[in-house]
């Protein structure tokens, strides 16, 4: 690889964010090379669930970002991308005492022209027959859907190659050359590539990339567990989740941030159920800080199954064929880092998406492409700027 020509952009990471960035940047006419330490989708992109959506408790900015992201997927699928996209909406279940709050949330969504409705007991039975008869009402939100993140990664990589990008798997970034405060080259296990721009899309491992230039990237791994069942085609008609899910997202944002990152522990569990086109059911979810450990914890799996059983009583009887744990890239304020950093010129971030990497992949890639080529962005990226964190501190 030491003989390759200088590149406009070197992307670090072959997950869903890196692959989408490779596609967008190469389509914009830049010469792109993507470096991946292992294989495509080897990290969180193959150890996650399949949802594409948003939360009703999100603030206006985050919700607008997610809506743009969700609509980007719909367009992507409409243009013929084969990524197992399902646009069947979500059924969101909450405890009875949250009904008023949930209905208020729906009104806000409608005001932002998101199709949604309240389903009473009868309508709910019809919409989602597998649901527990003890649930007497739930919200249906139309814009949410599912994709196969592994398919998205491979489709994006394929398209990027068509646009002239190079993809180097089994290639690790070992150094970044900086001269006069500017990126000049990416040093890899396979050789050095001259470049003025490096996009950090290394997910939960982004901190290690920052260390190569002395930056402390505020991204830490947030572990999550998933179970996969035997095929049960059509058991669920929607992507099913509960209001508790957003509370688990908020809860991990409230942890103490010490010198070495968030304190270990504080496990959170909420049911997130997705029936895949293969018929298999993905059952999640959990959130906890456990470093880079990816071993599955049976107790956590059991807690997830218990929650899932409250929503769908038939679910615990299904056979589990596989379980796994993945590492989300968590940031202290719950927003991703998207865009260039003033701290090292030429270093662009596309990381820290927490549990929203699937949803935000396409919009992230568009924003990165626009910011890199100096085009106006479709959404204000100030709240996403990496410069909101001081990465130089001792």
């Amino acid at each position, binding site marked *: 690889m030491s003989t390759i020509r200088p590149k406009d952009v070197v992307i670090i990471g072959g997950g869903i964010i890196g692959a989408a960035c490779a596609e967008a940047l190469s389509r914009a006419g830049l010469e792109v090379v993507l470096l991946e330490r292992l294989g495509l989708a080897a990290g969180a992109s193959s150890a996650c669930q399949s949802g594409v959506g948003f939360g009703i408790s999100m603030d206006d900015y985050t919700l607008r970002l997610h809506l743009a992201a969700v609509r980007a997927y719909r367009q992507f699928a409409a243009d013929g991308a084969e990524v197992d996209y399902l646009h069947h909406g979500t059924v969101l279940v909450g405890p009875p005492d949250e009904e008023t709050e949930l209905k208020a949330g729906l009104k806000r969504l409608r005001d932002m022209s998101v199709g949604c409705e309240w389903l009473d007991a009868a309508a709910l039975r019809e919409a989602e027959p597998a649901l527990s008869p003890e649930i007497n009402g739930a919200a249906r939100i139309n814009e949410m859907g599912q994709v196969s993140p592994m398919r998205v990664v491979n489709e994006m990589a394929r398209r990027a190659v068509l646009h002239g990008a190079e993809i180097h798997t089994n290639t690790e970034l070992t150094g970044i050359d900086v001269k006069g405060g500017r990126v000049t080259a990416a040093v890899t296990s396979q050789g050095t590539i001259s470049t003025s721009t490096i996009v950090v899309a290394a997910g939960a491992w982004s901190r290690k990339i920052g260390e190569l230039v002395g930056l402390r990237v505020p991204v830490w791994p947030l572990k999550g567990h998933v179970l996969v069942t035997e095929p049960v085609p059509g058991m669920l008609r929607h992507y099913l989740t509960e209001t508790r899910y957003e509370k688990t997202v908020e809860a991990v944002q409230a942890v103490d941030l010490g010198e070495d990152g968030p304190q270990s522990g504080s496990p959170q569990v909420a049911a997130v159920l997705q029936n895949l086109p293969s018929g298999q059911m993905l059952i999640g979810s959990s959130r906890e800080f456990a470093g880079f450990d990816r071993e599955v914890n049976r107790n956590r799996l059991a*807690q997830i199954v218990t929650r899932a059983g409250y929503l769908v009583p038939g679910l615990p009887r299904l056979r589990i064929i596989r379980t796994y744990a993945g590492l989300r890239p968590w940031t202290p304020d719950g927003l991703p880092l998207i865009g260039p950093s003033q701290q090292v010129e030429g270093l662009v971030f596309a990381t820290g998406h927490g549990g929203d990497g699937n949803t935000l992949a396409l919009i992230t890639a568009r924003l990165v492409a626009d910011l890199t080529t100096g085009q106006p962005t479709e959404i204000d990226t100030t709240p996403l700027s990496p410069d909101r964190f001081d990465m130089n501190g001792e």
Partner: protein
Amino acid sequence: MTVPKHLVVVGGGPAGLSAATRASQLEMAVTVVDEYGKMGGQYFRGRQNSTVAGSPRRFLLESPGVEIFSHGIVVDAPAHGVLSVWKQGGGVQSLTYDALVLATGACDRTVALPGWTLPGVLTAGGASTLAKAYGVAPGQRVLVAGSGPFLLAVADDLSTKGCDVQVVEATPLGTSVGGLPMIARDVAITRQTIGYLWRLGLRRVRRRYASIVTAIHGNERVEAATIHRVDQAWQPIAGSETTIEVDAVCLGFGFVPQLELAQALKCTIGYWEETSDFYVKTDEQMRTSQENVCAAGEVTGVGGMRVAAVEGRLAGLTSAYDMGLVAKLDYDAEVRQLSRQLVRARRLGDWVRHAYRPRAGLWTLADSQTMLCRCEDVTMQSAEEALACNPATPYALKTATRAGFGLCQGRVCSSYMIEWLRAQHGYRVPEEERPWRVRPPIRPVPAEEWLTDEA
């Protein structure tokens, strides 16, 4: 009185039963877990009257105190010294052990060739089980194709059931003839082999050598199969094909060890490149890389029933010795004696594995529409396409295509996938592991039976 040390043996075939017998004689409390209702494993299915070493009858006579856990499937190894065993309809039990013997055996090597997923195509081992244990024949006109002496056993079973059988063996006749001096040293095997050949001769079972089935045809199910003669590398020779009408095909290209539990326990796995075999690495006394875990029989490398029985005995002995139940002098003496037996037994087993090993041509039979993974309907074409921007590794292929994502979790297709990547795409198998992750549960199990919420 102290509580006896508990040995759990997983697998009730010749290796497992021999280990259980020896350990129980040495004052261990022993539990044998097996998936089936009857002990004896694949080898003794339909041979319930045999009394040779490793047979269930001999086992019952010699080891009355051993606890039998039949219909038990090990689904997880959740902590050191604990196995989760699922009994269908009976929940999951935690089985604790002081020592463990892995005797999980082997299953048929699956090969993707055009038509292999048609109804009517079985593995040779599967067909043999159907015939012997259930008295069911896979069809009327049956092609038994593959490589190795097991084909003769299957052809014998099926022709006994009245099937019109043809055998297609990929290695040349000379290979089998070359093994005769080796076979002649063993009276029982000689008798068995003569029996097969005699009966197959009487029933006019046609045998072709240096030939391979290159395609299986049919709409709803098997209707015909195409056979080519092959060269030494098992490459089909152009113009040599014949198509025969059959309604079932039994494919038997040897066996692969069942390594899921060994992998879950993080035992070191070895790989013999030449014979395309993964196996659990052990020392000469059958200890794996994990403390107090021994392995015996086909999981340590396919070698046949005799090897399994001696290895099992050795594993049972070593387990007891490691628990402090055998004096060193006695142990060393018995190890020497068993090791001598093993050398003799392995001679034939090693020769068979080597002589009938898969050759390069086997990994080239699939065409673009052949299924690589039948659970997820992944074709060879989509696998090739995925490799355009992915490294040629089993994981990358899996992630890109969903091959191995289905109900079997790659138990059927992963061995083929690894060999195909090696042969066609220069993939190199990593050292000391099988490049196909095993994640709990080891086998499908209902969530509510496997997982108990203690929170």
